[in-house]
C-alpha cells in the first residue's frame, strides 16, 4: 500500500510537469489550431536559463529559487513571443502543413543552436531550492516534489484567473472560439496570439526548471521526450481545453510512473504513444473535449 502511495506521489509530481507543458500546447492550439513543435525546446531553454541563473543566486534558498523561476519564465515568454513574431506570423492563413513544418524547423533550430551555445554534453542542474526529504510513515516526500506540486498548483490557479477574469483572457477565449468574429468586435488578434505564446512559454519555462530540479541532468535535447509526452497529455485531455490539459498531464504522469515501476519498465516511452493512438482512434476530442461534427 505504501509503495502504491509512493508511486502515486511520484507520478503526480511528474504529471504536474507534463501538465504545465501541455497547457502551452493546448493554448496555442486553441488560438491558432496548430501544434507548436518548438514548445518542447522552449522548455529546454527555460531549464538552461535556470542553470545559468542558478549560478548567480545563492543555492538552497527559497527566494533564490523563486528568482530563478521568475527570470526563466520572463526570458522564455519573450522567446516565445519572438518565435511567434518571426516564424509563425508571416504564415498566418497558410496551409496547416506549412505551419507544422515551420514549427519543426524552429524546433530543430533551437535544439542545434542549443548544442552550439550550451554544448552537447549534459550539465548538472544546481540545487536552487533547499532540498530535504520528509518522511511520512513509510512515504518519502522530497522537498522538490513539494515545490513541483505547489508551484504547479499556483500557476494553474493564476492561469485560470487570467483566462476567466481578465480582459485579455476574455479576448483569448474569443479568438479561440472564432478568430474572425473576434476581430469584428474589435479584438486585435495579433496581440492576443502574441500574449498566448508568451503565457504558454512562461509555463513551459516553469516546467523546465521543475523538471530539472527532479532530473538534474540537462542537455539541449532534453525537451524532445517530455515535449512529445506533454502533447499527448494535451490530446488526452482534449486539445484546446485548459482543465483537460491539466488532467491529461496528471493521468499520463501517473500511468508512466506505474509502468516504470513494473516489469514492463523498458516500454515506458512507448506507453504515451500507445495512449495517444488509442485516444485519437476512439475519442479524438479527448476526455474533456467537446465532440463537434465536421462541416463540409
Amino acid at each position: 500500500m505504501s509503495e502504491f502511495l509512493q508511486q502515486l506521489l511520484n507520478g503526480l509530481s511528474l504529471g504536474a510537469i507534463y501538465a504545465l507543458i501541455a497547457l502551452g500546447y493546448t493554448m496555442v492550439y486553441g488560438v491558432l489550431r496548430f501544434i507548436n513543435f518548438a514548445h518542447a525546446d522552449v522548455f529546454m531553454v527555460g531549464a538552461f536559463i535556470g542553470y545559468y541563473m542558478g549560478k548567480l543566486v545563492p543555492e538552497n534558498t527559497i527566494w533564490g529559487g523563486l528568482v530563478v523561476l521568475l527570470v526563466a519564465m520572463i526570458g522564455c515568454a519573450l522567446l516565445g513571443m519572438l518565435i511567434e513574431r518571426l516564424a509563425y506570423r508571416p504564415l498566418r492563413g497558410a496551409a496547416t502543413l506549412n505551419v507544422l513544418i515551420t514549427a519543426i524547423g524552429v524546433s530543430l533550430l533551437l535544439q542545434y543552436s542549443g548544442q552550439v551555445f550550451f554544448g552537447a554534453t549534459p550539465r548538472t542542474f544546481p540545487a536552487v531550492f533547499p532540498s530535504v526529504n520528509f518522511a511520512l510513515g513509510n512515504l518519502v516526500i522530497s522537498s522538490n516534489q513539494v515545490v513541483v506540486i505547489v508551484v504547479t498548483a499556483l500557476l494553474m490557479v493564476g492561469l485560470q484567473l487570467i483566462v476567466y477574469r481578465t480582459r485579455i483572457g476574455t479576448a483569448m477565449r474569443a479568438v479561440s472560439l472564432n478568430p474572425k468574429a473576434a476581430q469584428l468586435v474589435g479584438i486585435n488578434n495579433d496581440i492576443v496570439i502574441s500574449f498566448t505564446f508568451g503565457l504558454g512559454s512562461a509555463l513551459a519555462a516553469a516546467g523546465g526548471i521543475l523538471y530539472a530540479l527532479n532530473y538534474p541532468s540537462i542537455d539541449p535535447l532534453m525537451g524532445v521526450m517530455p515535449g512529445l509526452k506533454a502533447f499527448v497529455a494535451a490530446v488526452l485531455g482534449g486539445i484546446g481545453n485548459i482543465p483537460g490539459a491539466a488532467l491529461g498531464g496528471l493521468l499520463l504522469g501517473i500511468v508512466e510512473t506505474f509502468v516504470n515501476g513494473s516489469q514492463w519498465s523498458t516500454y515506458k516511452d512507448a506507453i504515451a504513444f500507445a495512449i495517444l493512438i488509442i485516444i485519437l482512434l476512439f475519442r479524438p476530442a479527448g476526455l474533456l473535449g467537446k465532440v463537434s461534427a465536421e462541416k463540409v
Partner: protein
Amino acid sequence: MPRPHLYLLLALLAAFGLSHFSDRIDPYHLDIIIGIGINIILAVSLNLVNGYTGQFSLGHAGFMSVGAYLAAAVSLFLGPRLLGAEGGTALQQGMLFLAALTAGGLGAALAGLAVGVPSLRLKGDYLALVTLGFGEIIRVIFQNVEFLGGALGLNAIPAYTSIFWVLAFVALSVFTVTCLVHSTYGRGFLATHDDEVASEAVGLNTTRYKIVAFVIGAFFAGAAGGLYGHFKMTITPTGFDFTKSIEIVVMVILGGMGNTVGVILAAILLTLLPEVLRPVAEYRMIIYSLLLIVLMIMRPQGLFNFKFGRMKP
C-alpha cells in the same frame, strides 16, 4: 511519359554496367553515391504518401527500421544455412540479398498496412502525430527484442549492398511511383490530395487510395532500410528515430511535394550538403533548420518545384 518499361530496363542495364566500374571509383565517393541512392528511395517513396496523396506521415523511419531488421535477420540467420560456411558464390549471395530485401520490403509494407488502416482516418497534424507515435513504438519494440540485439542492434551484417543494388532500387522506386501516379488508377491519389470530399462524391474510395499509397511507400522504405543495413553493416534502433523521419520529410518538402524530379534533386542536395559543410560542421544543422523556416515562408511550394516534372492538373 512514353514506354516507361523501356526506361526501367535501360536504367537497370546502366546500373549493371556501372557496377563493373565501381572498383575504379574512390571509396569515399562510392559511399556518398550509395548514401544518395538510399535517400532517393526513401524520399521518392515518402513523396507518394506526403506529396501526391497529401497525407502527412512522420513515421517513415519506422518502416525503414522494420525493413532493415528483417533483411538483416534473413542474411544473418538464414544466410549461413543456405549458403554454407564459405559464403557461396556471388550469384548465390545476390539471390539471397534480393530475397532479404524483398522480405524487408514486404515486412515493412505489412507494418504500413497495420499502421495505415487505423490511423489514416485522421487528418493533418493528427495523422502526423500518430505516425510519429507508431514510429517511436516500433523503435521501442526493437529496443526490447533480445533476439534482434536489443538496444545494441545487429552487428556484422554482410556488406552485400553495392552500387548496382542501390541504383536498381532507385530505378524501381522512381518507376513504380511515376507509373502509378500517371496511370488512370493513380489519378485517385491526386484527387485525394486535392479534395477529399469531392473525390468521395464522384465515387472514389479515398481511404483505399491512402492505404495503398502508405503500403507502397512503406515497401520501398523497408527495401531502403535493407540496403542501409547491408551498407553500414550495423544497425541500432536509435538510428531510425524521429530525427531520421524528419530528415526524409525535409527532402520531400524541399523538392516540392508531389514532384518526383524535385524530390530526387533535394535528396541529392541534402546528402551532399553535410559533406560540403564539413568545415563548418558545428553550424551545419543551424543552417539546415533556418533554411527550412525561410523556405516555408518565402517559397512554400518547395525549392525545386519548377514547371517541368510537375503533374498537369
